[in-house]
């Protein structure tokens, strides 16, 4: 609101540099993605759960399950700060975050907040990453 155009410019940059992001979605759902979905459903009983494997935009082999974006819409988030909401998501996925998952972008919304803007955002482009230490989150 304060600076819509600036936010726009920050993330339109993402659009320009971005490699094809849809490829991961068209492929089969991997075991990590399936586990993330199941665990979030069990832990937070979400009204909406949108999950995107964004690994295709990063310096990892094809078919990787390292980078994800998730939108979790749950009434459990009512009255909680963004930090507290994210911690609930982290707690549900502690195993994945300690293991294969390298990056997890989180949109944690209440049902009312989701209805205001019901979309999974786009992540900024990868900038090369830590190839030396790849594999450790």
């Amino acid at each position, binding site marked *: 609101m*304060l600076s819509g155009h*600036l936010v726009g410019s920050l993330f339109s940059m993402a659009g320009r540099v971005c490699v094809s992001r849809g490829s991961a979605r068209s492929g089969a759902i991997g075991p990590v993605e399936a586990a993330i979905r199941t665990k979030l459903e069990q832990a937070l009983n979400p009204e909406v759960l949108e999950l995107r494997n964004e690994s295709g935009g990063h310096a990892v082999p094809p078919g990787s399950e390292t980078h994800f974006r998730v939108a979790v819409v749950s009434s459990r988030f009512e009255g909680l700060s*963004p*930090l507290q909401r994210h911690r609930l998501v982290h707690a549900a996925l502690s195993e994945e975050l300690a293991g294969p998952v390298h990056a997890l*972008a989180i949109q944690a919304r209440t049902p009312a907040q989701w209805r205001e803007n019901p979309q999974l955002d786009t992540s900024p482009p990868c*900038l090369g*990453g830590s190839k030396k230490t790849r594999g450790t*989150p």
Partner: protein
Amino acid sequence: MSGSLGRAAAALLRWGRGAGGGLRGQGVRAASSGGSGSSERLDALVKKDRVVVFLKGTPEQPQCGFSNAVVQILRLHGVRDYAAYNVLDDPQLRQGIKDYSNWPTIPQVYLNGEFVGGCDILLQMHQNGDLVEELKKLGIRSALLGEKKDQDSK
């Protein structure tokens, strides 16, 4: 021990010289007890500067899109005087800061010694205006307020 401290000192970057000169130079004093990942050291580190970020890469050359987004958001608000630590230079720091905040990912942002969140939360605070307010509490006037004022006066 001294090697570890040397690495920590090298990992520390002061971003933006000139503005907020009062804090200048503090950043090079990275010495403290414990390794670079010890909680005592990290506690001192996040409290030493008003704005502290842990990144993959440097503000000049972020190595991750999410770290870059944090840098760009601070830049939009005209926050130049902040301490940035590159976790890729120091594996102990990389793990230590995650344990310290109980937060599994990098980047991490601290305002006035308090953990604020990562890229998603900083972006959200930027979008809803909370960041301007939080910076104000630290005595930092967001550059976006200045821009707004200029536009209003024209």
